[in-house]
């Protein structure tokens, strides 16, 4: 027998086999802007592609969640919330969770603690005004966590982080208290398959929906079979929000529900994990 831990050993509620979180990083044009550098001008094509998120994708995402009656988590940069306050209010009214994702999707390595704190204070306030409560979830823009990120999360009362990629189970960074980590991974990120830009740094890939759906179903099935795992789907309204892709997402949701998924917000899953986990497994954070 292999004497190596393979999972967190958690038992999910009501006989479900896996905790599934449908998450959207609602970055619009900031996704590309932060990728090429905050001070580099964004060409029209990249800006306009980002605007597909709020102008087209958002409604489709909102609708597919409503049709399937499932709650989701949206990580929204403060700036996007300022620009689209009505979208954020509607998310909150519909029972979706809104989490922190930078102010301008800042993803520069080595940001100072002061700078990061400023982004958090500003964005939290914007989100609180629109949703009625401060965000409790943190997802690092482009996966770039700063040295001070976890310390700031703790000080500011966050419940969970969803950026690490080291496990397929949700864990506590320290025993007995937040922060809970809800890992995600490139395989289950629509960016991997659907982001396209010819401009440096370019990303030129194309996939059929079936090809991606098949990958996501197989990942889901294999994780669900292990019983103590999470499946955190990471989506962007500007990519998954295309007409045919949103149908594919609907199919995936049906499939997962049929196969015993507990589909919940990151916040609810994190709270459950906090209540049902005793050990801390984080790293010098």
């Amino acid at each position, binding site marked *: 027998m*292999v004497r190596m*831990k393979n999972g967190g050993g958690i038992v999910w509620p009501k006989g479900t086999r896996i905790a599934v979180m449908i998450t959207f990083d609602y970055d619009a044009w900031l996704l590309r802007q932060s990728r090429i550098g905050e001070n580099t001008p964004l060409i029209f094509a990249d800006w306009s592609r980002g605007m597909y998120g709020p102008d087209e994708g958002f409604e489709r995402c909102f609708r597919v969640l409503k049709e399937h009656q499932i709650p989701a988590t949206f990580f929204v940069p403060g700036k996007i919330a300022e620009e689209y306050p009505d979208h954020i209010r509607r998310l909150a009214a519909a029972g979706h969770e809104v989490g922190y994702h930078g102010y301008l999707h800042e993803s520069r*390595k*080595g940001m100072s603690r002061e700078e990061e704190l400023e982004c958090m204070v500003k964005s939290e306030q914007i989100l609180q005004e629109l949703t009625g409560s401060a965000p409790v979830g943190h997802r690092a823009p482009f996966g770039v*966590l700063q040295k001070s990120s976890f310390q700031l999360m703790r000080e500011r009362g966050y419940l969970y982080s969803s950026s690490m990629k080291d496990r*397929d189970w949700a864990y506590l960074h320290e025993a007995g208290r937040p922060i809970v980590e809800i890992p995600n991974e490139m*395989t289950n990120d629509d960016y991997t398959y659907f982001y396209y830009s010819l401009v440096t740094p370019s*990303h030129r890939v194309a996939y059929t929906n079936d090809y991606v759906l098949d990958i996501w179903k197989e990942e889901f099935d294999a994780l669900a079979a292990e019983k103590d795992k999470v499946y955190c789907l990471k989506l962007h309204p500007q990519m998954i929000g295309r007409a045919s892709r949103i149908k594919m997402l609907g199919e995936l949701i049906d499939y997962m529900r049929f196969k015993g998924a507990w589909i919940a917000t990151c916040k609810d899953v994190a709270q459950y994990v906090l209540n049902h986990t005793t050990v801390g497994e984080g790293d010098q954070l």
Partner: protein
Amino acid sequence: MIWPENKRIAIMMAFDVDGETLWFQRGDGNRDHLTNLSRGWYDTRQGLPRILRMLEEHEIKATFFVPAYMAETYPEHVREIVRLGHEIAYHGYLHEECSSGASEEAAIMEKSERIIREITGKQVIGHRSPGGAIQDYSLELFLKRGYIYSSNWRNNDGPFIHNIEGKQIPLVELPKDSIFDDTAYDMHTEDPPPRHNLRSAKEMVQVWKDEFDALAAEGRMINFVLHPQFIGRPSRVKALSDLISYMKREGAWFETNENVARYVLQQNGL
């Protein structure tokens, strides 16, 4: 090559346990990029346990090429791999590509071999170069340090005996290539140098299955190059497990690199 027990083909399941050292060697080293490092940590925290369980179900022994930094950082993982009957082999200290000379490389090998020997009680006897780099002094070095095999050449579908200046040496080559390297299909990163075009687990193992069928018909071998931090994802381990079942049914001889090398040496009277 005539394989033992009338087997049609020799299959070496071999894993490069690079972990975070793979990320240390990319771009600016990722020392301050926590989530990139965490992708490397997936190796020991999730990929490896899942793969070891799968191998145990199939009762197959594999070879693990482990950078000594990984062995130093995760000695209990290395002990567990050995306890389960698998082989540990050489893969650098920090997964570094050596190009600055025989003495520098000999020093890294000396240090890495010692670290692994102190954990496993055994000297490594197989070499797979990090990044695939081989120098004109490499064979001499392997020979001098008592290695019996190398898994670096890409020019052949079968094992062969190396020679120096036309004279056979007791060193077997167990070739490998990118076609049997999972990162050709399952490693995706945005950070320079970027790796795009992720393939499904199904497509990945289909490539391997097609090649297996044709190589088995010729009585050859496959030496895999698998990275637990990428192929350790649940759907990929499942696909790999299905492929192993298929290869078993189709007459594969599963052995460690070490045991295949010993067999080849013996067949050649070396």
